[in-house]
């Protein structure tokens, strides 16, 4: 008889489940039951016997985002005929599904993602630890000097929990970074100095400064520099 797991850690017989909305599924060969409406990651997070699923952009108090992709697992909804990769932080548990959390394919994918993160943030402790766990020796790529992995937790915490939106992710793609509005050097009145951003940051890229406001990761294009660039261009144009 499958166990009904209450909040991940303790279990009761499924017949005694306090919840009418029970979802039964198979995880790594084990039949389990949990209450429906939660994601795979939430359901499995602290379930004994399940290898820890790494995640960097997840926080229980904040809406899942699916950016770091480390929590990727394999699922099958056709009784095991075909499996596909999904981000477990976003995928809700479904009746009868099969979940694999720690196959060679998954470990290889996570290893690949960690190698990329380590190349971006070679000096970040949590990434180094993950790299060690997954056997990433040294990235095969050029190294960056970031601390921020752009998981967006700080931005989302500021928006969702505090309701301030004092910081945001600006630019797109490889130019994306966390910054104050309009690339201001200092956070203005929008920031109440609650420190939530620093608290949720998984890599320690945000710290609290002496003025009671957070210190954000260094941005690549500070606003003042854009200004200088533009005025240089104007000068060149006027000379021509």
């Amino acid at each position, binding site marked *: 008889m499958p166990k009904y797991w209450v909040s991940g850690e303790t279990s009761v017989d499924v017949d005694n489940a306090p919840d009418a909305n029970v979802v039964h599924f198979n995880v790594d060969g084990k039949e389990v039951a949990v209450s429906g409406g939660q994601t795979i990651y939430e359901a499995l997070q602290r379930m004994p016997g399940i290898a820890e699923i790494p995640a960097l952009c997840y926080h229980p108090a904040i809406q899942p985002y*699916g950016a*770091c992709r480390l929590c990727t697992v394999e699922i099958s909804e056709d009784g095991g005929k075909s499996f596909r990769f*999904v981000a477990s932080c*976003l995928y809700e548990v479904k009746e009868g599904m099969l979940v694999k959390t720690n196959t060679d394919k998954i470990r290889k994918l996570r290893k*690949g993602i960690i190698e*990329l993160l380590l190349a971006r943030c070679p000096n970040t402790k949590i990434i180094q630890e993950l790299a060690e766990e997954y056997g990433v020796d040294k990235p095969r790529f050029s190294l960056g000097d970031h601390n921020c992995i752009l998981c967006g937790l700080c931005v989302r915490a500021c928006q969702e929990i505090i309701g301030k939106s004092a910081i945001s992710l600006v630019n797109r793609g490889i130019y*994306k970074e966390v910054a104050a509005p309009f690339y201001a050097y200092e956070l203005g009145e929008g920031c109440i100095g609650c420190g939530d951003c620093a608290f949720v940051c998984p890599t320690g890229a945000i710290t609290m400064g002496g003025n009671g406001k957070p210190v954000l990761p260094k941005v690549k294009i500070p606003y003042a520099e854009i200004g200088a660039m533009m005025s240089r261009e104007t000068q060149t144009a006027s000379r021509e």
Partner: protein
Amino acid sequence: MVEQVKKLLDKRLKSIPELEQLRQSIISDRDAGRITVSVCGGTGCRALGAEDVVDAFSEEIEKKELAVKIEFKETGCHGFCERGPVVVVGPQKIFYQHVKPEDVPEIIDVTVLGGKIVKRLLYTDPITNDEIPYEADVPFYKRQTRLILGSNGEIDPTDIEQYVAAGGYSALTKVLTGMSPEQVIGEITKSGLRGRGGGGFPTGRKWQSCRVVKNDVKYVLCNADEGDPGAYQDRSILEGNPHSVLEGMIIGAYAIGSHQGYVYVRNEYPLAVEHARTAIEQAMEYGLLGENILGSGFDFKLTINKGGGAFVCGESSALIASLEGKIGEPKAKYVHMAERGLWDKPSLLNNVKTWANVPLIINKGADWYSKIGTAGSKGTMVFSLVGKINNTGLVEVPMGVTLREMIFEIGGGIPNGKKFKAVQTGGPSGGCIPEYLLDTPVDFDELTKLGSMMGSGGMIVMDEDNCMVDVARYFIEFLKGESCGKCTPCREGLSKLSEILDRITHGQGRPEDLDTMTDLAEVLSSGALCALGRTAANPVLSTIRYFKDEYMAHIINKKCPAHVCRELITYSIDAEKCTGCGACARACSTKAISGEKKQPHVINQGMCIKCSACFDACKFDAVTRS
């Protein structure tokens, strides 16, 4: 009096018979044997000066007072962009190519008034050297099945009456008079139509899944955010025949029970935006959009939303985010948009071409439609055939035509006697297909098997002068710039792929690079958040699969066989062929070439910047590159 004028100006059609009456009256007002002159106003022809040709015609027609005698119109794209500006004189459809404003008086005098053909403006078959007077006989058109593009050359897209006269909105009347929503969906399902935006999902099933969701508010969306380099068919359909898309959307809305739709179109397509807007306004005016359409009691409104030009916004969840006014970033699609799409309401999103297919299927029936194409892919597909090809343009063929037919028969082969090397299908995330696979029939499943995809229908032809490593580098560079940066595999992975490809094309490739790139490709395809990232490695994987020798030449021998990658080319002068004319030395901007007059010259390799100026300047083939 005011009321009477208002009544006269009110074009609103209040019932289905009124639309049929309008159609009959437009047709009967026309003289069946009248002369028509249509100038292609598509993007390609405009770039080649079609607007001046239009002006010249208008002037000439006014001067000679021919306005009543001939019907002159600027139409949408005729497809044969290579030969633009294109002018077609009806009713017999004489095809004139490369028309300049100064040719216009002659066309008017000789063809329109004199009934004769201006021979010098005709298309000449490059193989037989025959002059071909009629459009239907031009080989480029002859082998096509132009179901979607066919009307483009016939109607003025800014005039709804021309669409109506050509049978437009008859599919809508058919639906409104006797088909239940279920019947409409049944017909689309039976036709076998698959989404033309790239995914190839069965359209009928998509509609059905949106139909069954109970909600008072549902949205119908059109994806016109075509952003692939070299693809412009969606643009041309929206520019040339916007009502066909509108009609499809109205039918789709009726089928799923929606009353509001959006056309998401790139702002970089100003003409498409303008024509779609005009079409919506006119359809409103004629009672084909808005409340109580044709007196049927069915309401549907359409709004245009201009996209900011982000490639990723062609991805459905990013498109929806952008429509909602949020940052155009994809979300995981674990909940189908048929259940929760735009503003969390059930939404039905289809590509421009998919919508344009709908009236056709309704009018001619699913049985007729499903006879066209292959077992798994029905109907026709519109491709934009570009790159190293003689007949650049938009091509519409039944699914299942081989790549070889498309490139060598319709496309007229490779210019300048060069050798074909590869064709890239499916846009930047598609793959490069080599010569020996050219007999593959083109449909959704076959292209996927080859490691490429149908995508939105882009087809870029490459010849022996294209370096496949450089091609992969170009597409990865493009995708790197267009990645939204949300998920790690896409943002970091593409950046590293691009770094490696850059190194290889600069002569700094390492033997392990191919394995590293294959590993990265796997992280992208299984780990990325959206389809952009998951397919982004295709250009690398397909070029490694089919052109591994070129990678090896770059990495091991430090040579670029196609002579594209500058750092890998060495220029030298063949002393036996060199006449000592000095042309190369004069062309050299770094003064790397020296030599006495009438004596063989020499290149100082240390000073050579490999700009190829000497190679181009030498008339005696004495400058060689390796």
